[in-house]
């Protein structure tokens, strides 16, 4: 009997804490959000102007624009265009870019590595900075340590990332001439846009980490750890900080979404060839297949990141999947 119970305990320990039902629920939710995003963007793209108006040269007459719209099928009622679009997707025929003739997903995927490089690096660096500052502001020995770093980050948070980018360009590119202002020809081009985005991530992480650490500091399990005689430093790191990571992990996942959205602005400002810049260009030029493909990929990326974060949170705290 003892052997059987021992085996069951071992099996329970080895079993993943993630339930299939939980993953399924999240995947279905993700699909719905994907469909919703595509539908909204599709409708908005069409509601904000017939693509033929943009495709035609500006000196084309009304009649010539109407003829172009007929050729491309843009003259059909919007619900029919939407239905055709969905049917084509179901059949695996996603339309090609109107300008390059290449598959729209290929156009977007080509730029995904650039955006991931920018976004993920910014999130990682921003999160690390946020965690350090959050920890210091909660557990710093002196009042200066507890107050100054986080206040500085708060100031950064209050600067819009567009303006922050301009400030960095002014200082590092124009005044010091250390870094290029824009483009993507070497790793040096990455420093300013990554810093701009990281400045958006770090303050949020720092604030939540500090408040969560402060919140659970006097909870019973922390007091128990102290009562066991563990050093104060070990209590803060192993019990206080680690337990405060749950909500912060969720936030970092959400920040990834924010960074992807922020990348639209930052990539435009720094003339960085990523998905954000492509999306802006596709919307302006009404290259709707590329715009939709970009939205689908961004949405998919956001959902996957969100799912991974949920899984991570459950691993950190298995009670989360019951909520």
């Amino acid at each position, binding site marked *: 009997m003892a052997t059987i119970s021992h085996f069951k305990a071992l099996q329970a320990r080895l079993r993943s804490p993630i339930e299939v039902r939980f993953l399924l629920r999240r995947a279905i939710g993700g699909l719905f959000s994907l469909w919703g995003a595509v539908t909204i963007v599709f409708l908005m793209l069409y*509601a*904000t*102007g*017939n693509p033929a*108006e*943009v*495709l*035609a*040269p*500006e*000196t*084309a*007459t*009304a*009649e*010539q*624009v109407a*003829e*172009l719209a007929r*050729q*491309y099928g843009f003259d059909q009622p919007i619900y029919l265009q939407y239905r055709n679009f969905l049917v084509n997707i179901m059949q695996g025929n996603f339309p090609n870019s109107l*300008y*390059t*003739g*290449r598959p729209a997903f290929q156009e977007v995927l080509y*730029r995904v590595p650039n955006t991931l490089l920018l976004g993920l690096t910014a999130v990682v660096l921003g999160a690390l900075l946020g965690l350090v500052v959050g920890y210091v502001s909660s557990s710093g020995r002196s009042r200066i340590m507890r107050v100054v770093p986080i206040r500085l980050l708060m100031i950064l948070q209050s600067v819009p990332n567009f303006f922050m980018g*301009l400030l960095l*360009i*002014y200082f590092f*590119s*124009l005044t010091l*001439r*250390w*870094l*290029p*202002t*824009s*483009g*993507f*020809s*070497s790793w*040096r081009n990455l420093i300013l846009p990554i810093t701009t985005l990281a400045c958006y991530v770090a303050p949020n992480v720092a604030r939540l980490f500090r408040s969560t650490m402060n919140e659970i500091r006097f909870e019973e399990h922390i007091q128990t750890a102290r009562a066991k005689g563990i050093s104060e430093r070990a209590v803060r790191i192993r019990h206080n900080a680690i337990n405060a990571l749950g909500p912060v992990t969720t936030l970092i996942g959400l920040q990834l979404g924010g960074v992807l959205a922020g990348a639209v602005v930052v990539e*435009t*400002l*720094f*003339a*960085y*060839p*990523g998905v954000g*810049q*492509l999306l*802006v*260009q596709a*919307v*302006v*030029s*009404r*290259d709707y297949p590329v715009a939709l493909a970009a939205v689908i990929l961004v949405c998919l990326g956001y959902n996957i990141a969100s799912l991974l974060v949920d899984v991570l949170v459950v691993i950190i705290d298995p009670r989360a999947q019951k909520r």
Partner: protein
Amino acid sequence: MIFGAASGSRPASAADSGVTVASLPLLTFDPAFARTVQDLSIMSQVYSSLTTASFVDGSLVPNLAREWTDVDGKEFTFKLVPGAKFANGEPLDANAVVWNFKRLLDPATQSTVIADFNMISSVEAPDPTTVVIKTSTPWLELPRRLSAISFLAPEWSKTHNPKVEVNPSGPYVVVNYDFASHVTLKRNENFFGEKAAFENATYRVIGNSQTRVTSLRSGELNFANNISPLDVQQLSSLQDLNVGAIPGRRVHVLRFNMLRDSVKDVRVRQALNYAINKDLITASIYRGQTKAATTQVLIPGQVGFDETMKAWPYDPAKARQLLAEAGYAKGLTLSLGVSDEYLQAPQAAQAIAAQLAEVGVTIKLQIVPTAIWTSFITDAQKGTDLLYLGFSSTTGTSTELMNQFTGKGRYTWGPSNPDYDAAVEKVKTATSLESQAELIRKANRILADDAQLVYLWPQPFTYAVSKSVEWTPRADDRPRASDMRPAK
């Protein structure tokens, strides 16, 4: 991929690294789909067209066609440069030109280059260096329109996607590109015409105007245009840049929504023309980089430009009197739609609103985001009473512009002036340039007498270019590296 002078640590020197030019995002290399200034600019450097516009004064000069003649404006004979070739060795002869026209006119191509080409009745190649184009009606502007039509290699096109691949025949070849970030060009040593002065040219895609300015200041660019008038002033203080502006080809106007009763009375339309002090706005908002437009949507150099037509005089007293006569002595409220699609337009529109308020016209300003501007300006029923627009033609022909103010115009809201419509139709079928110019002047006077537009100013073409580069400003907005040369 290393850009010409993108170090950021020292000013760009055009002499040792070629020239680096700012560009807006590029869309395609295919001549059947190119319509933006930036696409046409690149295309005109990697491909050849029969004719081209001179970078000196915009006049039409030979390119692939050495010379051309016409019979009654209906039959054009182009004599081509013998021995011209594409980079892959394929001949660029009359047969290649004929094939390109067939492709362009074939509905299956779904070309978006729409320019009355249905008037072409046949394109033939009697011998390898002669192309004969016949039109169904006289079309004197055809040689100029053809300056925007570049040619592909027929055999090569069967196995390549011309939207993203290039088999060049122009002064430059494409070394590498990414539409979102850059196009790197290298001089085509086998080009049949005059060789480009710079061996290398890099077009860097910088959509944001602020970034263009900072890149200029840091020395990463040798050339940029579309700079705000305020930045032009600030950049002028930099020693290594030549900065300036010329009146561009795009003319800003206010158009009336003729579905609205309040603007159907010509006296109201005239009053608005009298009430706006164009000189004050061009001096302040445009920092003197342009001047008031004459009462025609043409600029000097275009066929039919009338030297005798002057700017509409500023006379607020006359404006008040006309409004009173039209029954609006106690005031009139009009809505005005504007977007930043056109340089400084929202700021100018606010100044216009303030000036009109002084004569009793209250303007309700609607500043529309660029992304929905296209939709906004195509709905006359829901549209504003007035619309702030800028008009330009791709090749500089007068009728392309004039068409826009007839009943056929995309942004003609409500009925147009039938006399003007008839006059423009006559312009199109003129058989000599002299008679066409006279007909254009006549048509423009009809439009002005009926005050169908509020004439504002030509949009300034603003630019900044390194002193190491010699370049003559051109009104058509096309910054071409092949027009640039190292400064002496």
